[in-house]
């Protein structure tokens, strides 16, 4: 990720009022994680799997603070169970920012499943999402996701792909 894209993500998170980020690091966002760690206005929590991160974000929601779950899109699959229970069972929202592994342009065989499953899994959970491949659209996509999730009290997602992450 270019520094300017990292800056756009952090600007978007701050504009949306996010003060806590749970993450499990991945390679496409590798420049983003240390930038989040270094930001004095954001507390980062490293998790052991993305489902745990989703549940922590749900707890943060209940506190009145705003959280984000940041991960590779494969983490969505690890998060499905807590997302379904919290979102559909209780109306506790989690906003996710994920790297789009496995989209056209992918050159790793192991990442192909992530691309094939991401959008069907989001659709199965009825989670609205936006795929952003242009840097100037990152900030708006993040703030729109929070607007929606705090009106619907349901999850939303932003997937960053294309030139933004490669």
């Amino acid at each position, binding site marked *: 990720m270019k520094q300017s894209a990292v800056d756009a993500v952090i600007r978007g998170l701050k504009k949306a009022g996010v003060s806590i980020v*749970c993450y499990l690091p991945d390679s496409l966002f590798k420049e983003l994680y240390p930038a989040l760690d270094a930001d004095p206005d954001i507390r980062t929590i490293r998790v052991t799997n993305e489902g*745990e991160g989703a549940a922590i974000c749900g*707890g943060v929601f209940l506190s009145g603070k705003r959280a984000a779950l940041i991960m590779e899109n494969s983490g969505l699959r690890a998060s499905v169970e807590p997302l379904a229970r919290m979102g559909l069972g209780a109306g506790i929202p989690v906003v996710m920012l994920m790297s789009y592994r496995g989209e056209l342009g992918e050159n790793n065989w192991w990442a192909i499943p992530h691309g094939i499953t991401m959008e069907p899994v989001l659709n199965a959970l009825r989670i609205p999402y936006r795929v952003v491949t242009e840097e100037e659209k990152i900030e708006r996509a993040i703030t729109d996701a929070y607007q929606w999730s705090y009106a619907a009290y349901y999850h939303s997602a932003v997937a960053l792909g294309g030139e933004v992450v490669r």
Partner: protein
Amino acid sequence: MKRYDCMKALAARLKDELVILSLGASVDEWYNAAPHMREASLFQQQLGCVTPQAFGLAAGLPHRRIVSLDTDGGMMFNLGILATLGNEQPKNLFVVVWDNEMYQSIGGPATHTAFGRVDIAAIARGAGVDYAYTARTIEEFDEHCAKGLAADVPYVVVAKVAGSVQPDIKRKHSDGREDKYIFVRHVEASEGITIMGPSEHN
């Protein structure tokens, strides 16, 4: 040691705390053992989510004591949270693990703790939660509640309880959605904040 008796002992020590707890029979037991904490308790629905959600709440409200009422099945489902607590060292999180060595709500098949080898408190210590203990009597449990509710490090007590359920107790009627609203409105009122506010006019 009966879980319901432990709950009564813990409930007597609670006033301003917030509680996240698991699904199954312990929900109705807590509902009856701690009637003064009903609005301050969120009945979570999923194995593996209770302590992570309690930790998220603790991270968001660092001045408030948060109590997680987890279970052996729930903790075994996501042991990773113990490593996260070990690294993050929250100062305001007290974790109780009701360990009845069974999946009680589906009729009682054994969990991994039933065979005398798996020790959740030892796993927690190995994960960096230094204050993690097993309680086998009400007196031991109550002493850990006193210490855990006053600690400024994460504190875990694994309560070895019988597989029985307190008979003739009132069932909770609300579902997860109603529970969330009740809990959120309690947090809003007690913290003087807005979590779920009015819609915009536009």
